[in-house]
C-alpha cells in the first residue's frame, strides 16, 4: 500500500476526478486505510458543504443607487454609440503610470514651453530656451519603447468589426517591409517615423524629409523625394482626420488619451474608415491605432477611434495576436 499521506490538493483532485486512473486507485487505497487522510478528506467535504450553504447576498442600497445612476448616464448616450465598447472600461485595463487626462498635461506642457521661451529670450539665452523647450516637450515625442518606430498609414480603406482583427496586424508588417527598404507597400503608403522625430509644421505631411533613413521605396519613387509636399499628394486621409495626420503631437495626445497612458506609443496608425452596421456607422473616418498590449507581449491592442477623440470616440477595441507569435 502507498504509505505516503495524501496532500489536500491530491485529496481535492481525487474527489474531482482529476487524478490519473492508476494514481487515483492508489490514493483511494491509501484513503481506505489511513484515518488521518480520511479526516482530511472529510474536512474537504465539510468545506465544500459550507460553500454550498452560503446564502444569497443582497446588493447594498448604496450600490444599487450607484448602478442606477451609471445606467441612467449610459442611457443618455447617443444611440449610435451604444453598441460600442466603453472607453472607460478599455482604458482601465491598461496600466497607467499617471491617471490624469493627457489633454490637460499637453496644454500644461505647451504653456511651460511658451513661458520658458519668453523668459529666456528676455535674458538673451536663445540656446538655453531651445534646450529647455525640447526638454519640456519630451513627453510628447518620447516613446516607452525607443527602438520601436511608428508606422503611419493613410490607407483610407474601410475596416469593419469582421476585418479589423485580420487587417490591423498587417499594419505592422508594413513597418517591417519599410524598415527593410523593400517597399512592398501593403495598404496605402506607410511612412515610418523614427522615434523622437520632430512633429511636422502645420499643413505639412509627415514625409520622407523627417524619415530619410527609413523612408519606404514607395516614397522614393516620387521624383524629388526630398519634398514633403510631393509625398503629401495622397488625399486618402479623410478630411476630419487631417489634423492627426498633420500633427504627430495631436496624434500622440489622442493615443495617450484613449489608452490613459501619458507616453503611449502606438506601433502603427492608419487613417482610415470604419463601418459597423450595428452601430449605424458607414465609412466613418476613423483612426486605427495598434499598440503593444501592456500585459502580454504576444498581443496587440487595436483601437478604432473617431476624430473627436473623446470619451465617446471609441468605435471598437480588440486584442489580436501579434503576427509570428
Amino acid at each position: 500500500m502507498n504509505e505516503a499521506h495524501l496532500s489536500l490538493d491530491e485529496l481535492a483532485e481525487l474527489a474531482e476526478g482529476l487524478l490519473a486512473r492508476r494514481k487515483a486507485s492508489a490514493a483511494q487505497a491509501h484513503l481506505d486505510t489511513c484515518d488521518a487522510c480520511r479526516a482530511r478528506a472529510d474536512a474537504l467535504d465539510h468545506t465544500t458543504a459550507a460553500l454550498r450553504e452560503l446564502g444569497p447576498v443582497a446588493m447594498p442600497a448604496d450600490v444599487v443607487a450607484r448602478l442606477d445612476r451609471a445606467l441612467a448616464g449610459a442611457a443618455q448616450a447617443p444611440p449610435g454609440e451604444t453598441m460600442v465598447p466603453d472607453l472607460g472600461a478599455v482604458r482601465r485595463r491598461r496600466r497607467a503610470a499617471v491617471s490624469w487626462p493627457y489633454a490637460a498635461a499637453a496644454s500644461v506642457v505647451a504653456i511651460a514651453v511658451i513661458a520658458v521661451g519668453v523668459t529666456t529670450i528676455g535674458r538673451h539665452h536663445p540656446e538655453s530656451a531651445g534646450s529647455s523647450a525640447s526638454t519640456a516637450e519630451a513627453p510628447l515625442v518620447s516613446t516607452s519603447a525607443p527602438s520601436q518606430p511608428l508606422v503611419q498609414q493613410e490607407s483610407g480603406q474601410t475596416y469593419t468589426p469582421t476585418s479589423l482583427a485580420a487587417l490591423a496586424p498587417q499594419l505592422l508588417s508594413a513597418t517591417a517591409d519599410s524598415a527593410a527598404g523593400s517597399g512592398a507597400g501593403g495598404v496605402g503608403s506607410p511612412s515610418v517615423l523614427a522615434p523622437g522625430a520632430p512633429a511636422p509644421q502645420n499643413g505639412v505631411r509627415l514625409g520622407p524629409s523627417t524619415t530619410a533613413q527609413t523612408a519606404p521605396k514607395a516614397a522614393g519613387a516620387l521624383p524629388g523625394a526630398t519634398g514633403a509636399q510631393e509625398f503629401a499628394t495622397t488625399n486618402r486621409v479623410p478630411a476630419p482626420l487631417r489634423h492627426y495626420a498633420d500633427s504627430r503631437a495631436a496624434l500622440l495626445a489622442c493615443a495617450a488619451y484613449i489608452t490613459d497612458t501619458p507616453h503611449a506609443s502606438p506601433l502603427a496608425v492608419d487613417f482610415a474608415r470604419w463601418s459597423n452596421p450595428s452601430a449605424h456607422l458607414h465609412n466613418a473616418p476613423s483612426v486605427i491605432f495598434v499598440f503593444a498590449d501592456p500585459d502580454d507581449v504576444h498581443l496587440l491592442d487595436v483601437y478604432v477611434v473617431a476624430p473627436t477623440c473623446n470619451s465617446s470616440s471609441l468605435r471598437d477595441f480588440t486584442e489580436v495576436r501579434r503576427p509570428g507569435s
Partner: protein
Amino acid sequence: MSAPSLGDADLLAQHVAGDPNAFGELVVRHRDRMWAVALRTLGNPDDAADAVQDALLSAYRGAAGFRGNSAVTTWLHRIVVNACLDLTRRRAVRPTQPLLIEPATNAPDAISRRDTAITVTEALRSLPAEQAAAVVLVDIEGFSVDEAAQILDVPTGTVKSRCARGRARLAEQLHDLDPRRDSGTDRNDVPSSRVESLEPTKNKEKK
C-alpha cells in the same frame, strides 16, 4: 417589473431594440447574484461595486453582441467575472489594504462549527482570484462545471483543477490543517486573513 413573464433573452432583445426599461428589469433580476459573485470573488465591497458597475455598463452597451447560444445569466456572469479578474490584475501591482467583509448572513453551519477559526467567506479572500471565481461559480452559485467553463472561458479541466485547489486551500484554513501532513494541531501559523496570506498564496499558484 412591468413584464414578469418575459424571459431574460426577450428583455435583452427589447433593450437592443430600444426599450428604455428592459435593461433595468434585467438588472433588478440579476443584480444580487452579480453582487454575490463579485463580492465573494474579490472579497472587498468597494472593488465588487466597481466590477459590477463596469460589467453592467459593458453589458448595457454590448447587448447587441449577445449571441443567444448561452443563457443570459451565463453571459452576464461572464462579463461580471471578467470585470472582477481584470480588476484583480490591475490591483496586483498595488499593496492590498485590509478590508472587512460582512459575514454571510445565512451560513449557520460555518459559523457554528467549533473548530472553524475563520468563516468560509473570509477564507475565500485568501484565494487567488481565478480560484475564488471558480469556487464561487461552482460551489456557491451552483453552476455546472461546463457552465463555469463557459463563463471563465477556460477548459472544463481547468475549472475542476481551480476548484480542487481552491477547496484544498479553504479546507487548510478552515480546519487549521497542514496541506501535506496530518498534524493539524501543532500549526500556529495558519493565515487568519487575506492581508497576511494574499501575496504568498498568489505566488504559490504557479507551482
